[in-house]
């Protein structure tokens, strides 16, 4: 065990970023999150899905291997799987499209959170058990085209996918944090700057 793990004040975080454009506001938010974490002495790894050329669609071979002993067939998926099994904080940064995750991020969940990583099947009872018991903080940072009132009406499905479905794969003690910027097309420069500063502050305050 290295010193940083035994030190309770240091958080090891993974930032999973899903936006096709490097000049996007989502990239800026991810950078501010990293800055905030590093300012507090936390350790951060970034997974930039588009930059990595991550493939969204689960392949037929992967679907067949899903219930086997080796469900991961792609080194890029393996890198993510090794990381998420070791982090204290899992942080997602993405734009909400059709009330949910961009396909590339949904595909990352499907291909990385396979049996043995996201969860395990209990052979005896047949029940599903959480696999991400190491994750203490589950954090979503997302921008929305719609105002918050509309996001509520359509059920904020991306948020629920992370804060509920993925949460079930974490331990009982996991804490969830959601940061949303709504109606981005009509937001002001000042509102976006304030939101970015809020992200940096809250990451610095992570314990």
């Amino acid at each position: 065990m290295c010193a940083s793990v035994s030190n309770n004040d240091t958080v090891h975080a993974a930032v999973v970023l899903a936006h096709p454009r490097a000049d996007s506001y989502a990239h800026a938010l991810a950078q501010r999150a990293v800055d905030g974490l590093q300012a507090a002495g936390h350790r951060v790894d970034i997974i930039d899905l588009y930059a990595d050329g991550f493939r969204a669609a689960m392949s037929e071979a992967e679907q067949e291997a899903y219930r086997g002993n080796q469900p991961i067939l792609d080194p890029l998926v393996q890198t993510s799987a090794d990381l998420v099994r070791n982090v204290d904080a899992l942080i997602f940064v993405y734009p909400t499209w059709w009330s949910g995750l961009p396909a590339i991020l949904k595909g990352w969940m499907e291909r990385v959170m396979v049996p043995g990583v996201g969860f395990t099947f209990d052979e005896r009872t047949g029940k599903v058990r959480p696999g991400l018991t190491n994750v203490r903080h589950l954090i979503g940072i997302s921008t929305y085209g719609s105002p918050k009132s509309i996001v509520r009406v359509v059920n904020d499905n991306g948020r629920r996918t992370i804060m509920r479905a993925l949460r079930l794969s974490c331990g009982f003690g996991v804490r969830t944090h959601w940061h949303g910027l709504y109606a981005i097309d009509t937001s002001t420069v000042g509102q976006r700057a304030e939101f970015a500063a809020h992200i940096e502050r809250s990451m610095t305050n992570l314990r």
Partner: protein
Amino acid sequence: MTRRALVVYCHPSPTSFVAAARDRVVAGLDASGAEVRLTDLYGEGFTPELSADEHATHLDAGVDPSITSHAENLMWCDTLVLIYPTWWSGQPAMLKGWFDRVWASGVAWELPEGANRLAPRLRNVRRVVAVTTHGSPKHINMVEGEGGKRTITRSLRAMCHPLCRTSWLALYNIDRCSESERLMFLDRVEQRLRR
């Protein structure tokens, strides 16, 4: 008037239960006399990742030239049937990418100057049917917030005709249900699509 049905099917394996459901959907639609167009996203190697170029022009009307036929089919149909397995409480990335890229400005919606609410454009779509399987039981999906169901019945439906009907045909707990339950589900799917 003849019904015009667009069937969008999404599963990586051609021998899956979902593929069997697709065949029953098409059989039901054929029996009703509908004109059917079938899209097999995995079969045609659809690219689900919205590109940087597409994002840069996402407020302009139209889709990438490589997916024009998808947009034309969507604007042509009066009945849209989506067939897929539910993974992580929602649509597989492949199908989500079809939403992200094909349900574009000038096809599914437009954004009036200065507005932040989309104006719907798919007035041709009067019925949306989802046919899906779940590994987990229904109560788990309710705890998870039923994101996949509501993406279709709320987010996508809002772009369709104001009186558009939605149907949710779902088989839960598929790994534990019996052969006869699965067959009954397939019968139910075909019956519902006949109407």
